[in-house]
């Protein structure tokens, strides 16, 4: 039989000029293989792909070495044995789905092609497969664009999902591996332009992860020499090494240990891209191709640069967030109420609940302070309007101002007057309500500046309010405050509180309110300060059904029996 094929009943002469000319015009690669899976025909496109000038040259080539030149992967990146190649499966009589997507990588050059393959069997009269016709459409461009789009879409979502920059970078790495690179190293500079340290190493093959991690660790430890990524960080310019030589490896590596690891990881192709924000390079992303044999292209480089910019924004955001959160936490610690002192003749308990917003403590304007002011002890509770750092720092001013003025003049109305002056002298917009009490023998001397009155709870459960309030602090020039005496007997308790208590809102938006508070106190008459405030805390927690959205402060005072 000459070089021809059974095509059902007909014999089609593959070397007939009109037939091959026709097939040479199509863009798809068309090949015909015999029963032994040897090439008997290839059109011009297929010849070009296989690297032959003519059909004669292809036929003269030993077939096994021809197929060895390529690594073939399925759509998910699993390497296919030769018996699993689409044409081989059809030749073996297996039914094949209409179209199969395969990824071909030429081992020598790393040239990578995605092909959509359709294989048709040709059978003899007995129905045996005598040949297969493979039509392969090159879909590399479409496929690459699809992968790039997917990686960018995934990282876009991931970058905004976490404020922990390590997690963010891990997400970036795993969006790129294995679709874009076999493995990936993300490094951050300790200072702008400084030596990088590895933050994330992601390797698609679990067997190699240990080794890849060693690369990150060794890079952080070794001080000797420069590396490709530190060069990128220093210059802000990306680098593509399509084909990595051993000389390149020596340049990429930071020190001998890294070089050893890079050799062992069999790096074939590499990309180094800066993580850049506003012309500042804060780190580098490195992509490596090893076992997949792929070679990175200019398009991959552009994608890596884009990922670098996006990651830099995410990292900087999380840094800013972390820094701010640390400042706020430190400040919050310093603005937390001082411990309660021992006051002779009195049992005192305090409740302080900062607002919790988005699982973070939010600085608020509520405060209290109990302090020894020479001949007497004073208690102060108050609420600076507003939230945040401005309000919180003002609570510090109020607390320390009260301590200072309390020593000069340990009378509640005088303390309020001094605090009012202090606030108005600052020419700030801040106003404050406050209630000050002097703890005497079986009595309190109280003065209020626009603050919710103290609630006196008698042993029989009667609740009364005192004192009549003067104007709030920092608001009016002609303000005056007057002290009032409130007798407190054994078995009685006085509650000082901020409006955070009565303004506690339930899930449906209902406020706890003064009515409920009075009923609660009445029901807890005779209770000692500590258990009373514990019960109040539990009551408010239950009412709101979660963490407070506004801060709360309360003091309970009872004379010792």
């Amino acid at each position, binding site marked *: 039989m000459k070089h021809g094929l059974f095509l059902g009943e007909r014999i089609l002469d593959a070397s007939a000029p009109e037939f091959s000319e026709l097939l040479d015009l199509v863009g798809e690669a068309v090949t015909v293989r015999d029963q032994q899976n040897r090439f008997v025909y290839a059109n011009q496109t297929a010849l070009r792909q296989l690297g032959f000038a003519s059909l004669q040259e292809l036929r003269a080539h030993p077939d096994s070495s021809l197929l060895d030149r390529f690594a073939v992967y399925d759509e998910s990146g699993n390497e296919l044995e030769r018996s699993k190649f689409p044409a081989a499966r059809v030749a073996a009589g297996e039914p094949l789905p209409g179209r199969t997507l395969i990824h071909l990588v030429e081992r020598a050059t790393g040239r990578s092609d995605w092909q959509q393959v359709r294989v048709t069997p040709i059978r003899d009269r007995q129905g045996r497969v005598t040949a297969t016709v493979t039509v392969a459409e090159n879909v590399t461009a479409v496929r690459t664009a699809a992968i790039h789009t997917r990686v960018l879409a995934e990282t876009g979502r991931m970058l905004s999902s976490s404020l922990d920059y390590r997690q963010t970078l891990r997400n970036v790495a795993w969006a790129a591996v294995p679709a874009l690179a076999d493995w990936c190293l993300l490094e951050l500079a300790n200072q702008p332009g400084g030596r990088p340290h590895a933050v994330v190493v992601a390797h698609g093959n679990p067997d190699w992860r240990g080794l890849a991690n060693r690369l990150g660790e060794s890079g952080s430890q070794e001080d000797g020499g420069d590396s490709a990524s530190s060069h990128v960080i220093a210059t802000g310019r990306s680098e593509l090494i399509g084909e990595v030589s051993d000389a390149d490896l020596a340049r990429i590596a930071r020190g001998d240990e890294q070089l050893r690891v890079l050799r062992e990881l069999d790096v074939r192709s590499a990309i180094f891209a800066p993580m850049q924000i506003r012309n500042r390079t804060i780190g580098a992303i490195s992509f490596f191709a090893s076992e997949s044999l792929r070679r990175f292209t200019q398009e991959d480089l552009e994608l890596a640069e884009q990922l670098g910019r996006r990651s830099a924004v995410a990292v900087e955001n999380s840094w800013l967030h972390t820094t701010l959160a640390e400042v706020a936490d430190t400040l919050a610690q310093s603005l937390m109420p001082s411990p309660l002192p021992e006051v002779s003749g009195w049992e005192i308990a305090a409740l302080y609940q900062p607002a919790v917003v988005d699982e973070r403590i939010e600085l608020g304007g509520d405060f209290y302070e109990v302090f020894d002011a020479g001949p007497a002890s004073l208690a102060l509770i108050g*609420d600076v309007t507003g939230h945040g750092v401005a309000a919180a720092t003002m609570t510090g001013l109020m607390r320390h101002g009260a301590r200072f003025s309390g020593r000069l003049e340990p009378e509640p109305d005088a303390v309020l007057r001094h605090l009012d002056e202090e606030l108005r002298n600052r020419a700030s917009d801040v106003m404050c309500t406050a209630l000050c009490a002097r703890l005497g023998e079986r009595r309190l001397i109280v003065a209020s500046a*626009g603050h919710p009155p103290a609630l006196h709870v008698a042993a029989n459960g009667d609740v009364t309010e005192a004192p009549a309030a003067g*104007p709030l602090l920092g608001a009016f020039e002609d303000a005056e405050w007057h002290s009032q005496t409130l007798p407190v007997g054994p078995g009685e308790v006085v509650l000082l509180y901020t409006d955070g208590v009565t303004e506690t809102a339930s899930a449906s*938006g209902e406020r706890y309110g003064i009515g409920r508070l009075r009923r609660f106190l009445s029901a807890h008459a005779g209770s000692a300060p500590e258990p009373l405030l514990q019960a109040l805390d539990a009551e408010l927690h239950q009412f709101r059904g979660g963490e407070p959205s506004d801060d709360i402060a309360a003091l309970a005072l009872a004379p010792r029996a």
Partner: protein
Amino acid sequence: MQRSFHVHVQPQADAALLAVSGELDIATAPELEQALDQISPEQTKLVVVDLRELEFMDSTGLSTLVRAHQRLSEHDCELTLVKGPPQVQRLLDLTGVAERLRVGSEPGELLDSR
């Protein structure tokens, strides 16, 4: 928990009537502050803030009113209030604001007094 707040501004000849409704608190006070800031004290002699439709006011809401009063009074422009519900009135009484600002029971009463 969805809270609502609205400011409705009604300019008069040399006065401004601001009707507020809903919850005036730390979250919504900036809205009122903005509306009050737009009032020019040179051209306005009287500002009436109608609190009747207010459901709730906290200390930040209150301080917004007091600050506006301070700013406007420097230019001889008076800030007055139409009495709100008990919780709001209690806060005004408690903080001494009710004593220092004119409080009426309806806007006409305050506007007619010019």
